[in-house]
């Protein structure tokens, strides 16, 4: 059963500029980890933007469980269905790690069986942040710590699809393994995990690998 399906997707940023994504067709199923690899500038981040509805494909369609994503409210899609770990984190730096996570949970509008703060604190601990660090402003956290806050935030509201743009780029090998374990757990829970990575270790740990080259699938 296919969770997310790309059907001949094309994308370009400015009018009349070259296609950044060129006629892409891909299938992403739940319960599996996908990795997307490719050279810098191949269009990996752009592909995640299109997948997360931050950008609408200029051509082609995306289906979520057979439903045209273009017909789903993009804010609802982003806040509920997908969790995005941005390449540059996109955290609110003047908020604490905990506040960042809780904010996403607030925005999702989902109901939680326990207090949001409790869930958020647990998640942060799971990705390797101490309670002290969780209460610190993101501004005062290291790159790796920030990356872990971004991961916790993407998981906090329990989305069906996880999009991660180089989630382990700033992490040491040991932490990277822990994160991969988390992703594996999520996939086992039935989520669809899509990871953009340059790391062969991460790629090796995935179920399916896609390679991009100048916006095309190799």
């Amino acid at each position, binding site marked *: 059963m296919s969770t997310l399906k790309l059907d001949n997707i094309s994308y370009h940023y400015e009018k009349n500029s070259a296609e950044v994504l060129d006629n892409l067709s891909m299938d992403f199923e739940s319960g599996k980890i996908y990795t997307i690899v490719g050279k810098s500038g191949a269009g990996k981040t752009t592909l995640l933007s299109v997948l997360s509805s931050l950008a609408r494909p200029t051509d082609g369609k995306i289906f979520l469980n057979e439903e045209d994503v273009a017909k789903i409210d993009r804010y609802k899609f982003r806040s509920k269905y997908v969790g*995005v770990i941005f390449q540059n984190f996109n955290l609110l730096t003047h908020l604490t790690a905990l506040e960042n996570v809780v904010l996403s949970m607030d925005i999702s509008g989902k109901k939680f069986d326990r207090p949001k703060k409790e869930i958020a604190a647990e998640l942060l601990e799971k990705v390797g942040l101490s309670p002290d660090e969780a209460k610190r402003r993101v501004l005062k956290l290291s790159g790796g710590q920030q990356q872990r806050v971004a991961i916790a935030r993407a998981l906090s509201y329990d989305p069906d699809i996880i999009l991660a743009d180089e989630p382990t780029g700033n992490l040491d090998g040991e932490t990277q393994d822990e994160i991969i374990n988390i992703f594996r757990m999520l996939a086992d829970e039935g989520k669809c995990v899509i990871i953009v990575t340059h790391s062969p270790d991460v790629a090796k740990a995935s179920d399916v690998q896609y390679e991009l080259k100048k916006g095309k699938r190799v």
Partner: protein
Amino acid sequence: MYIVKNAFKSITRNKLRNILIGVIVLIISVSACVSLSIQQAAEVAKEDTLSNLSVTAQISFDRKKAMEDMQQKSTSDDSDSGSDKSFDRGKFDFDVLQGSSLTLDDYMKYTKALKNGDSYYYSGAVSLNATGDLLPYGTSEEDESDSSSSSKSSDNKSSGNSSDKNSQTPPNMPSGDSSNSNNSGGGPMGGMPFQVNQGDFTITGYSSYDAMLSMFGEDGSYKISDGEMFDETSEAYECVISNELATYNNLKVGDTIKLANPQYEKETYKLKIVGIYTNSDSSSEEDNRFKMNDPANNIYMNYNAFSKIIAASEKADNKTTDSDGNKTSAALSENLAFTYKFASVENYEKFADKVYDLGLSDDYKVSSSDLQSYENSLTPLETLSGTAMWFFFIVLAVGGIILITLNIFNLRERKYEVGVLTAIGMKKAKVAMQFVTEIFIVTFIALIIGTSVGAAVSVPVTNTLLQNQISSSQQSDSKVSKNFGFENSDNNGRPQGGPGMSGGEMNPFGKSTKAADYVDSVSSATNFMVILELVLVGLFLTIVASLAALISIMRYEPLKILSNRS
């Protein structure tokens, strides 16, 4: 609900920025509160004064207009003789400038223009001489300014009597002769449309007690100390006289005094004293050159009886002979003062229009000194209120511009925040709502503080500003007064007789003495109305300040913001 929570968090996170906005709103709201309060105070004062105001009006000959008409006529007549616009004194027609006096019938005719609740009253005044033993108060040279001296020797009294009497109107000689100098000058009465023969007493007949309210009413200084007021309706020859006059002549209630026509001594009238009044306003400062101007020599009676005297005098048809041998009528002629009283200013204004339809000539004008002084009394407060209004709008405009600017800068700083929030799925409208909530909270906290401060200071500030306003307008007033030669503002040549004497045009410089009548303080300024207006000010500021935020948030695209950033 998390939007409000986040708004509060965001405010506390950005303390400096919000304090800055708060201070600006605080300044605006204090200024707005004070200036709105001033305007409100002016409004309240106006209504208060107006509701207590009894509008009275007189119809008087418009001498200014007559003068202008005459001047115009004379220049147009001279038009062929050259362009010389100088006024030919020979053509100065005093009769025209006097105007013909309106009769009681005329005045009564115009009462048809009155509305429900309006009323009218009138009084006639005439000057009569003393006869026999009766002496006008203030006759003796020695006790001119001392009222207690009536108990001095009777010698003094009688000698004073005879000498004064001789100089005034020699006995056994018809008055109005060459020796009767009182008749010529007119003195302070010159401005009257009537030539009143100067006698010893001023007899005033009142149509009703209403007409005497300014003297015997709540604010008046007159009081019946012995006996009682004459009957309002009776036609009996009854009068009330002053305490001074009674003491001076040893008169009691029940006595009768005999008065004579100053132009024809043999024509006499007997009045029974039914009451004696005291006037707590001392008469010592009065202009005593003419005894009839001394309030002590005012005799009051009702108009019915008074008009009988006038009618009788007319019937007697006595004649005087002047130095050229011309015979002129010596009949008493009354100086009629007719007052219309209105229930409202509106009624007065309608009346002032309607009388002309009822046949009043354009040469007459309807004027209300109450309304004039009412308007004058509010001038400083209204000037202040007008200034306050401009101040309010300027503060609001400048404050609004500062807030908009601040918020535009603010938003540039927060662009990334907007990008992140929308990227993780927060709707733009909600982001905008959070930002507006932040502005709203800061604005209203500052507004509440500002209103409290403004309300606390508005009364003293209003009163201080009002005092400044009054003293500056008084300065210009007293300068005018000085320029006209009235060094002593207490007495600028206005006849000080009873209201019956002040019929026609009053002292045109009366304004300078009115300074004390200005509304010079307010007791409460900030009321519910002001607070309501301030809430509107707060909403206005919030909307103005949010506008920039709303517009730019709606235009932001998260992908663009975030990719620009990275």
